[in-house]
């Protein structure tokens, strides 16, 4: 058996460092190989069940400690069981989308980092408005602006009116600190709606990023955010796009592809488990992540994902929505080959798993007696023979009453 190339590379690196002879190096490789073999699963060992158990046992431990939040410096992230469910259900949008933004080496200065962070954070009108007044007869809204905050956020007051992109209005700056918005339509109700959309309108930064926190992580400045938008963050100067990630698996899939999505699933699941003080071997999570992404798209584990796409009708029907699966199978005339474990357990046959996966190859020479009985009518042989007849069953098109 061969070791993975990564292991051999590491051994070689070590050998170089310690200046080992070729003989010694070979010995190390041999030793590691024998250790490696011990951890390799045997053929037909039900690794899926072992994976499921290895993950779900700690998950039950987690339920006992739900609602325990421990956010990293200011940002509250969903953790524990809710997050695990989020990952494996492949939710399109996580409850708390976050980004971890790494910076290039020449941006490792607190001032520069802060500037980048400022650029990322979304600023809405309501963040810089002190108060608003509405005139119902003249149909205008006046917003008193907070000049100090605007300076802090680096917003030019003259450019502000252009940044508000709402149809049917005219914007003007008065007295250098008041924004006057004139509504062109003659609609009082619309004016109130306008006020709301005005305050919610995007001024600066990346949409959806509501919180930005700058942290120091081992001699390096890292920006973590609440709300994510990878595509736009990658366009910002100074960011290291090779390491910057977010926790939204689907977003990673869109921006970076399926391999990256797989890695994110592994990373996120491992992180959530470890955060709860649980130790799960990474290979189990990897297996699960592989299963979720083999088809080139992210599939959930459950009715609409992996479990719902199994080949066997009986297995699908035994999981959820029994009637639906049986009726659909009968309409299509599906054939169940009974190759899986669950089908065989249902029919009380030896399941092709573990010790049951192997059979004798080659036939035992038949005696004359056996031949005789075989040629005879099946009536007499019934009781002695054909105990282990393999069955396959299929459903043919029939009328369905209701449903």
């Amino acid at each position: 058996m061969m070791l993975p190339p990564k292991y051999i590379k590491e051994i070689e690196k070590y050998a170089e460092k310690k200046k080992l002879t070729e003989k010694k190096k070979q010995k190390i490789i041999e030793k590691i190989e024998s250790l490696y073999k011990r951890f390799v699963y045997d053929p037909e060992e039900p690794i899926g069940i072992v994976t499921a158990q290895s993950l779900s046992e700690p998950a039950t431990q987690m339920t006992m400690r739900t609602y325990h939040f421990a956010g990293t410096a200011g940002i509250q992230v969903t953790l524990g069981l809710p997050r695990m469910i989020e990952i494996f259900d492949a939710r399109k949008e996580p409850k708390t989308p976050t980004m971890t933004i790494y910076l290039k080496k020449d941006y490792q200065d607190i001032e520069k980092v802060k500037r980048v962070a400022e650029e990322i954070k979304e600023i809405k009108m309501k963040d810089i408005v002190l108060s608003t007044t509405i005139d119902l007869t003249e149909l205008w809204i006046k917003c008193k602006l907070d000049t100090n905050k605007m300076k802090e956020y680096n917003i030019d007051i003259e450019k502000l009116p252009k940044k508000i992109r709402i149809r049917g209005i005219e914007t003007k700056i008065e007295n250098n600190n008041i924004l006057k918005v004139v509504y062109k339509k003659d609609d009082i109700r619309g004016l109130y709606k306008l006020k709301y959309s005005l305050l919610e309108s995007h001024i600066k930064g990346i949409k959806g990023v509501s919180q930005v926190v700058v942290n120091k992580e081992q001699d390096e400045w890292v920006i973590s955010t609440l709300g994510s938008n990878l595509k736009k963050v990658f366009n910002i100067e100074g960011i290291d796009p090779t390491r910057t990630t977010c926790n939204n698996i689907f977003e990673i899939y869109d921006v970076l592809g399926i391999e990256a999505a797989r890695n994110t699933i592994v990373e996120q699941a491992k992180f959530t488990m470890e955060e709860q003080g649980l130790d799960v071997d990474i290979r189990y999570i990897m297996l699960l992540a592989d299963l979720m992404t083999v088809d080139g798209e992210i599939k959930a584990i459950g009715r609409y994902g992996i479990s719902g796409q199994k080949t066997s009708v009986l297995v699908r029907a035994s999981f959820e929505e029994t009637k639906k699966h049986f009726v659909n199978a009968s309409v299509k005339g599906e054939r169940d080959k009974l190759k899986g474990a669950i089908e065989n357990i249902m029919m009380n046959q030896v399941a092709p798993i573990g010790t049951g996966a192997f059979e004798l190859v080659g036939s035992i020479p038949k005696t004359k007696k056996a031949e005789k009985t075989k040629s005879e009518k099946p009536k007499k042989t019934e009781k002695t023979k054909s105990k282990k007849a393999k069955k396959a069953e299929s459903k043919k098109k029939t009328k369905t009453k209701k449903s």
Partner: protein
Amino acid sequence: MKKQSHEKAERADIYLNGKYIAHVQDALKFVNDFKKKRRAGLLPYQANIAHYPELREIRINTSHGRVRRPLIIVENGKPKLTKEHIEKLKKNEIDWSYLVNHGIIEYLDTEEEENSYIALTPEDVTKEHTHLELDPITMFGLSATLIPYPEYNRGDRINYGAKMVGQAIGIMCNNFLLRTDTKFNILAYPQIPLVTTKTSKIMQDFPEGQNIVVAVMCYDGYNLNDAIVMNKSSVERGMFRSFYFRTYETLKKRYWGGQEDEITIPEPGIKGHRGEEVYKDLAEDGIINPETKAESDAVLIGKISPLRFLSGEEFISDIENKRETSITIRHGEKGIVDKVIISETPDANQMIKIVVRDERIPELGDKFASRHGQKGVISLLVPQEDMPFTSDGVVPDIIFNPHAIPSRMTVGHLLEMLAGKTGSYSGQILDSSAFHHPKEKEIRALMKKMGFRDDGKQTLYDGRTGKKYDVLIFTGVLYYMKLDHMVANKIHARSRGPVTLLTKQPTEGRAKRGGLRIGEMEQQCLIGHGAALTLKERFDSDLTKIPICTKCGLVAIHDVLKNKTYCPTCKDAQIVWVEISYAFKLAMDELKSMCVYPKMNPKEL
């Protein structure tokens, strides 16, 4: 409560039992007048009135089913119940109804309680108070008031304690020998607690436990994790011996057509006859005699019922038309027939009731508890000679693990031990009702006065070696209860047994001699180990052989009489026998019933 001001008259709607009846201008005046009149006896004392100023509503409730409780009325900062009343009460000159009728005590329901300000003790009463609690103990329910020193325990322990008091075996009523409840337990030698509360004094006709000498120490790890080590000799002397009574009942029913059940010894030849040996204990009338030993499944009442109603033309011999329907002792239970009652129901059917009594001696696995939520299970019965003993020769009945105390913080448990010890040596019964009882200091002083250590610790000697223990050991007397969870009622195993009709799988539950289910997770465990053949064998309980038609793939017919197997639809098709779980065959049948055609395609292996 908001301070009531009479300056501004607030109007309000009045609802009587949820129905609008009137409107008043001055709500407060109305409410006060109402209460005054009720206290004077002009209005029924069952009526309660609640004022909701924020809703401008007054609700008067007179309906049944409300929870109400008595309280002493306070007026101008003085409780209406005076010492004179108490003196008179003691002399039996007045009674409770006098107090209620004279406006000294009144009953409040939950709604009216919201409008009142209730003081817990007489010392707390201020001018703002409207009522005074009869006693602080009223904050507990009935079972919780049976717990001694409750204020020294953590709240949840009181809760558990109160729950377990309800499960205790004692004497639930004094006429139990005459009763025929389906099942009940009676403690053989009940005692009233040495450390009592006000309620347990009232309840002393219905004791529920025994005063037990307890040593707080470990015993070879046998009392690990809430297990209890018990003195075998004490048990043999009758400690916590109890009786389990079960009543079996049958009716001699009359059926249409003049037929009726028959209570006799069933003759051989009748359907379902159990063999003559089984009926040997029955008397001539077919009913077992009192004080007869009856083992599991023994017949108590021999009974024969008509199988089918005769309809003119058919001829069935008498013996063929009868079925044995005897009443037997439940599987797994035994006992001695305590009494036999033969009577008649209102519709003139003969009724027979048999009460069977079983002596239950404490055994490994029986559950015991003190009154502080400290429960445990017997793990070892130690002969007296091996138990630790004091220099006076006192041997504990129970060895209680000290680790049960710190995390649960049941200080009351320890206090009860000390008080019980004091009480047993001085011959006193100590009061330990919540909030006012002799304090720890007083108990200690009493101990000291009698010449003991005041902390309850004693030198103990190991019964097995005779050596003195290095440390002093806390011993005392505790009121212990035997709880209604005995292994004899729960022990269960199955190798063979009945199956359900529909699925041919083993039945479920102890009463039905059921099997222990291999659940989904257990099944996955076997898969996980790759033990395919073990897995198959474990699910062999409903294995059946069915004939399958190779042409249509459906179940064929096997005619046992003609020894012929054929498919009813495809006549000359070949038929194979297939070994399959019956549950799957059933599933296929059900699929067929919903018009899905499950076709089996058998192949030679």
